[in-house]
C-alpha cells in the first residue's frame, strides 16, 4: 500500500494488469528526467513559444481533467473541491525578475508532479481501469514533466550562469501519508484545481517572459554586434 486506502476491484483482468504496468513504467520513465535528449540551442522566441503552446495544451487538458475528475467522483464532487487543504502547493508564481519567475515555474511544475502521481495512484484504486480519468492523469504527468524540462532548458539558455537548485524554491512538498477515500477525493480535486490554476499563471508568465527576454536579448545581442 502506498499510504492510502485502497479499494479492491476483484474484476481485474490481465489487460488491466498490463495497463497498470504500462502506467507504472511511464511514471518510472517520467522520473528519469535526465534520460532523454539534452536541451538544444534554439532561438529564444520559438523556444518559449513552444513551451507556451505546450502550457496551453496542458491547461486545456487540465480543464477537461478537472471536469472528468468531478464527474467521476460521484456525489458531493463540488463540495470536495471547496474543502481547504494546505498540503497542496500554491499555484502562484513568485519572484521579482524573470529568472526568479522562470525558476518558480520550474519549481512549481516539479512540485506538482508527485501530487499528480499520488492522485493517479489513489484514483487507480477508486476508478475502474477503463476510466479516462486515469489516462488523462497520466498524460498530465507526462506533459508536465516535459514542460518542466523545457522550462529548465529555457532557463539554462536564457540564464546560463545561474544554477538550478535541486530542491524546489518553495521547499519540499509534504504529502500526507494516509488518507481515507473522502480525503483522497478532496485531495485530488484540490490538486487538479491548483494545477489548472498553475498552468494558467504559467501561460501568462511565459507570454510576459517572451516579451521581456526574447526582445531584450535580441536588442542586447544586436548592440553587442555593433
Amino acid at each position, binding site marked *: 500500500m502506498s499510504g492510502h486506502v485502497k479499494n479492491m476491484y476483484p474484476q481485474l483482468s490481465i489487460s488491466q494488469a498490463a495497463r497498470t504496468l504500462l502506467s507504472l513504467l511511464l511514471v518510472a520513465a517520467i522520473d528519469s528526467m535526465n534520460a532523454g535528449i539534452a536541451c538544444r540551442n534554439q532561438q529564444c522566441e520559438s523556444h518559449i513559444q513552444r513551451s507556451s503552446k505546450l502550457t496551453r495544451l496542458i491547461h486545456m487538458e487540465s480543464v477537461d481533467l478537472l471536469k472528468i475528475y468531478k464527474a467521476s467522483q460521484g456525489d458531493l464532487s463540488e463540495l470536495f473541491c471547496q474543502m481547504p487543504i494546505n498540503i497542496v502547493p500554491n499555484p502562484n508564481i513568485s519572484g521579482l525578475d524573470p529568472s526568479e519567475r522562470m525558476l518558480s515555474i520550474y519549481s512549481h511544475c516539479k512540485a506538482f508532479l508527485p501530487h499528480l502521481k499520488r492522485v493517479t495512484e489513489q484514483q487507480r484504486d477508486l476508478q475502474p481501469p477503463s476510466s479516462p480519468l486515469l489516462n488523462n492523469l497520466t498524460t498530465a504527468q*507526462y506533459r508536465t514533466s*516535459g514542460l518542466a524540462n523545457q522550462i529548465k532548458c529555457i532557463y539554462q539558455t536564457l540564464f546560463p550562469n545561474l544554477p538550478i537548485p535541486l530542491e524546489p524554491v518553495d521547499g519540499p512538498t509534504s504529502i500526507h501519508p494516509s488518507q481515507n477515500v473522502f480525503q483522497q477525493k478532496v485531495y485530488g480535486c484540490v490538486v487538479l484545481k491548483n494545477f489548472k490554476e498553475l498552468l494558467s499563471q504559467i501561460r501568462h508568465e511565459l507570454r510576459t517572459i517572451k516579451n521581456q527576454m526574447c526582445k531584450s536579448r535580441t536588442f542586447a545581442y544586436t548592440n553587442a554586434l555593433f
Partner: protein
Amino acid sequence: MNPTSKDMKGIMDKSSYRLLQLLSLAWLACRPTCSSITTYGTIIPQSPLVEIGKEFTATCVVYKAAKATAEDIYWKLKNVTVPKEQYTKINDSAVSVTITITNETANWLLCEKKGSPLNRNQVIHGILLTKGYPPEKPVNLSCMAVQSGRKISSNVTCTWQPGTRDEILKTTYTLFGSLIVSNKSGKAHRSSGYIDFGTFPSFMQLAMWVEVENKLGKVRSDILDIYAADLVKTNPPSDVNILSENNFSRTLLVSWKHPIHVTYVTLKYNIRFCTVGSGDWTEVPPNDTESYKESFRLQYLKPDMEYVVQVRCIHHMGYGYWSDWSANSTARTPEDKPTSKPDLWRVIIPSQVKSERRVQVMCKDPVESNGRIQGYSIKIQDGNWETVAVNDSDLDSRSQERKIIPLYQIPWSDKRRGLIELKAWNSVGESPQASLVIPKLTQEPPSVEWLSWFTQQGRLWVKWQPPNVTATGEPYRSEVTEYILEWVSVSDGAMDWQRERRHTRTAAIKGNLQKFNRYNISVYPMYSGWTGKPLTIAAFLEQGAPLEGPSVKVRRTGKNDAELEWMEIPLDKQRGFITNYTIFFITGGKEHSIVVSTDTYSYTVKRMASNSKYVVRVMASTVQGSTNSSDLSFNTLMYVLCVYPSAPGQIEAIVVSVSISFLFSVVLTMLCCIYKMDSIKKKIWPPVPDPSNSTIAKWSPDFTSKADTPNESALGDVSIVEVDVFDRKSLCEEDKAGLPLKKDKYLSEEHSSGIGGSSCLSSPHQSVSDSDEGGDEGQTTASTVQYSSVVASCGYKGQTPCPLPQSGSSQTPSFTRSESTQPLLDSEEHPEGPESQRYLRNPYFGRLPGGNNGDSGDLEDLNQMEMKKQGLALRRFCPLEEDFQQTTPTEEGHSPDGQPGPDPSYMPQLSGYRPQC
C-alpha cells in the same frame, strides 16, 4: 633508427598475437592426451563467422597420431585444393592458410594429410565457415503520427530504406525514440516500425533512429532530430459544405470544420476545385488560405456550372504532412445571361437549279452560355427576327462538346448578298449578336494562299498562309479578322468547325477526330463577317494499312502477258493515302512483284510463261502498312488464236506458216496427181472408146448395104450378152433365170456386150432398168452420157472371135459402159475428118429414133422416149441393134402384150446374152 610509438605498438600487437597463438597450440597439443577420442589434428578457429569480402586465416595443428609434418599438410575448400602460396608454416606441426571469403567460397575448409601412392588422402580436421555481411546502415528515415480521435496518436510510425545486400545472417531492427523525458524503443521490421509513446509528445523535441544488428556487428542510422509537430498528419477537414448564393453567379462559399483542436495543432488549409467530370483541378493560392479559418469564398467561377471542391490541411508552419483531401463536395453556380456570341456558320449546298445554291445556317451555343440556352433569334437580311426554340435538354453549359444546331436551310441566289444575324437566350437574358455575310458568288473574298497539315502528339494540325489581299473597292474590308477551320468526315459526312484568331497560322483541330478516317479540312478566311473562299485539303489524324485490298480481275490473258485491272479502294476503307500498288504474280513457287503508281488501275504483266498457272494479287500501300487483295488464279494461253495488236509479229509468223503449209500441201497434191495421172484419169474419166477407132466404125462401111435397108422391127431381136470378163463365162445360159436378181450388181459393174457375131455392144444399163421398171426417170438424167469401153476381145471364153467380114480382124473390141458425165471428147462429139464423115455416112449413127416409120409402131414410140433420155450417145449405137436383131432373134424382143419392144436395144439384156458363136 628508433621505432616510433606506433611501430612499437604494432610490434607489440604482433608479438602478443604470436604468444597467444603459441599458447593455443600448446593447449591443443596437449588436448589429445586428455581426450578419450583419438584425433589427428585440429583447426583454429572452430566454426568461425566470416565476413564476405574479407580475408580469413585458419591454422591446422597436426598431432603426433597423424604421423605427418607441416610439409604433408594441405588445405581444401570442400573439393578444391587451396594453392600452396596461401600457406604459412608456423612450425613442424602447424600450417595456416589465408583465404579471401566470397559468396562462392565453399562452406567447408578441410585440413588434409597427403597420402602415399597406395593410400588416399587423409582428412585431419575440418571447419564450417558461416559467411555473411555486416549490417548496413538504414537511410532516409522518416516518421509520422496520424490523428486518432480528437488527439494525435501516441504511436509514431517510421519507415526507412534498408541496405541493398542480402541478409544472409539473421538481422534485427530496432526503432528508438528519445524525448527529453524518456527513451523509447520498439522492435521493427526490415524497413518499418513504430514506437508507442503512451502520449504523443506534442510540442516536444524527439530523436528517432534505427539500429540494425547481426552477428557481425551493429549499425545505427542517422538520428532524426525532429520536432513533434513534424510528425503530425491530421485528418482532413470535416463537414465540408458549399453554399451557392443567388445573384452571385460566379462565386461559391466553402466552409469546413477543423479536424483537431487548435491547442494540439494550428492548421492551415488548401482548397482545390474543378467542374464535375473534368478532373482538371484548380488550387486556390496557398496564401489565401494560410490563416486558421473555416470558410473561404471561391471566385471567378463560371455561371451555371457544377463544381467539385476538396479541402486539406497541414500544420500552419508547414510542419508534418498534408492531410488527405476531404471527400468531394459539389454545388452549382447560379445562371447568368450569355456573355459571348453564338458560333454562327453556314454550309453551302449545291442546288439543282442553275445560278442558285442552298444555304444551311447552323450554330453552336455561345462559349459562355452561362446557363441552358433555351432558344435562338435569327434575322436574315431585312427580314424580321424569328425565334427558334431549342428543346434539347442536353444542350446546356455542362456538356463539354458543343452540339451543332441546324437552324435554317434556304435557297440563295448566286447573285444575292445577304446578312444573317443571330442571338442566343437563356432564362436570364440574351447573348451578344453574331453576324455572317454571305457574299455574291462573284464577290467572294480570296482564300488562303496555301494549306498543309501534319500530326503532332496525337493531334491534327493545320498550317496555312494568309491570303494576299490587295484588292480595293470590294464591298468587304480587306483585312482578315479570323479564320474558320471546317472539317468533314469522308466516311459519314459529319462536319464541325472552329474559329482561330487573325494572327494564327497553325492550329490544332479541336474536334474528336477518329483515327484512320479521312477528313476534308477547309480553311475560310473571314473578313469582318464576310466568308472568304475556302481552301480544302484531305488529311488523316493517323494513317493505317488499308482496310481491304483492291478488287482485282484479269481483263485479258495472252500467251506471255496478262492485263490486270483493279478498282480503287473506297475512300472510307483506305485509312490513309495510297502511296503505291504492288502487283505480285507467283508461278512455280517464285514470286515477282511490280510497283506501280497510285493512279494506276490496270497493268499488263509481260514476259510471262505461256500455258502456265499464275496467282496474282495486288497490294495497296500507305505509309503505315499494306493490304493485299485476294489471290486470283489464271492460266496463260498456249496459242494465240485471235489477232491482237499487242502481238503483231507473232500473228504474222502464224499466218506465214499456215500459208506455207497450205502451199506445200497443194504442191504435194499436184505432184501426186501428176504422178498418178493415169490411174486417176482412169478412175475419174474412164477411157471412152473412140468410135473412130472402133472396129465397128471400120466395119460399118462394110455393112452399108445391109444398113441401107434397116429393118426397124429387127431391133427387138438384138440381144445383149453380159459377160464376166474375168470368168469369161457367159451368163446367157448359166444365169438366165437369176438375171433380174443380179440387176443391181450389174448396175455397178462393168458390162460387156457382145454385138452380133463379131463385136460386142454394150447397151446402156440404165435402159435395161428402165425397161424393166417401166421407165423410171429418176434413175436417168438427160445430161448423162453413158460411155462404153472395150474390156475384152471377142475371144470370149475361148471362143474364137466372130469373124467380121468387114474387118477380118481376129480380135474384136468389146465395150464397157460408163455413166460418167464427162462431156464427150471432141472426137466423139464432133467427129471430124473422114471418120466423122464416115459416121455421118453411117446411116445407123445418123438415124434418129423418130426416123423409124411404119414398122415400129408402139415400140417406135417407146424407143423414141428412151432415146430422148439417153441422148445422142445411145443413138450412135443403134446400128448394132439391127445386127443383133438379125443374128440373135429372141422371144423377148417383143413386149409382153405381144407388141414389139419399145426399143430393140434393151430387149436383148432381158433375154440374156447369147454367145455369138
